[in-house]
């Protein structure tokens, strides 16, 4: 039997954080690709410490619902789940640990689907810029790096006049990027896993956005929902798990 364990951050304060994990899990259950699909969280239950005990399957795929490689994917998740690397043998169970979602090759397609949803039925004239908005942090260059990587991959497709990046907690700051971008239309997509305080409050407030479409001076800003809540993220999660099956298990005696 095969199990998929999706690990999310979760929250002690609201349901927004875990919601996409539950929704993607349900979508993946519907495909029948895995015998079990289980949710687990850092801040909610079941905790990573105990989730593997609840799984019957011997072949377990763990996919972190995180955008970038960093503190959670490299330290917290492996530590809490007791993982030894990409493949861990625990008794008769083989646990395969996938990388984060943002670096996966399918990510640009999900971002573009999010853009497609936002712009459906909307006409624009003049130059259009796609701006990917990341959280970013000066503490870890991967957090911003994954946003640049996706911008580069989308830029290579030649779909927009410009593809730019902006951040909340590192340079270039998103407000300055939106203001300075040389385009009449700005499509702003948060590369976040879930809706939350930033996507609902701080970003609209800081940029002066009033909804999906806001006129800001001579620019029209189209503000999309976070990429992580898009239904296609479920396919990305399943594909991320599938990809790890290529890794050979490390032979290790059961302890």
């Amino acid at each position, binding site marked *: 039997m095969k199990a998929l364990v999706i690990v999310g951050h979760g929250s002690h304060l609201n349901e927004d954080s875990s919601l996409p994990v539950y929704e993607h899990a349900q979508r993946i259950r519907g495909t029948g690709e895995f015998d079990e699909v289980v949710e687990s969280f850092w801040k909610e239950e*079941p905790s990573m410490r105990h989730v593997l005990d609840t799984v019957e399957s011997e072949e377990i795929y763990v996919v972190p619902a995180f955008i970038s490689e960093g503190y959670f994917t490299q330290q917290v998740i492996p530590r809490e789940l007791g993982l030894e690397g990409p493949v861990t043998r625990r008794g008769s169970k083989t646990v395969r640990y996938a990388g984060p979602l943002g670096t996966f090759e399918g990510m640009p397609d999900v971002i573009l689907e999010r853009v497609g949803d936002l712009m459906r039925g909307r006409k624009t004239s003049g130059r259009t810029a796609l701006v990917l908005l990341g959280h970013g942090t000066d503490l870890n260059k991967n957090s911003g790096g994954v946003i640049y990587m996706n911008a580069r991959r989308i830029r290579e497709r030649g779909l927009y006049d410009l593809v730019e990046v902006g951040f909340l907690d590192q340079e270039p700051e998103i407000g300055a990027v939106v203001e300075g971008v040389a385009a009449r239309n700005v499509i702003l997509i948060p590369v976040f896993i879930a809706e939350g305080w930033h996507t609902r409050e701080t970003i609209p407030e800081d940029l002066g956005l009033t909804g999906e479409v806001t006129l800001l001076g001579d620019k029209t800003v189209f503000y999309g929902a976070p990429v992580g809540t898009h239904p296609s993220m479920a396919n990305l999660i399943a594909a991320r798990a599938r990809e790890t099956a290529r890794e050979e298990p490390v032979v290790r005696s059961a302890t």
Partner: protein
Amino acid sequence: MSEAPPEVSSLAAASREAFAAWVAASAEGRLFGQILIRRCSSGYSLRHAEDAGESNLEAHEDPRSAREIAKLTERGEYRPLKSSPNLRRGWEIRVSDSVELAVAMSYLYPAGIVHWHLHRGGRLGITNFRENATRQSGLYKRVQRLSDRGVQDAARACCEDAVCLKKTLWDVDERTPLEMRRGDGEIPCPEPCSVFISFARRVRLFEREERDETGLSVSEKEDLAALIEAAASGAGEVEFAREAEFEKPLNERRMRYRRLTLVPRLRPEE
């Protein structure tokens, strides 16, 4: 299912079958947390224990509907800790077999039946506070410095049945047992959870504060002021902080901690 499959890979299956058998063995049903589970002609029925005799309940057949039921309190507040005694009433889930029963239970009390099964067999691994704290990093690393007294008070404030229905099985460390009522329920708690660690972090911040000439710390004065403001705004107007919002004064667990650590100083004769 005739026989449980082999040990290591099938803990989840063995737990599920043992739980279903435990439920089936009782004519009046079993209480697990706040849930009453009964065997019925079509399988199993789950409802809030206080709805035992109710007939007009919102009916569910999908075991995964338990997730929505467990998400918010009666008043619509988010429930970060499923073992808090604030499960809403007014629903019944009917499931057809032990597999569906386990799915529903996994949303009502995540990992609860596996821990229950292991504990009954004397095989549940316990992780004491100090061991758990050693693993913490980042924001939570400071819980490593929490005093033994702080752990004791935090556990009494955060984990007793009034606020969490799990039976607390872990200790400060192997030589220092928790001095608290560990709980009467069926769901074992083998290790400090993330809500406890977050609370312990707050208690560690309290511990580091200095008291001024009044004998009070800054946060204690903040809490007293907030309580006075709240009470002065009139009965029924008091708005408590959310369940795990420990940085706010009017949080239930934070107030329980003050009852243990501040009230005896305010009323020394009692």
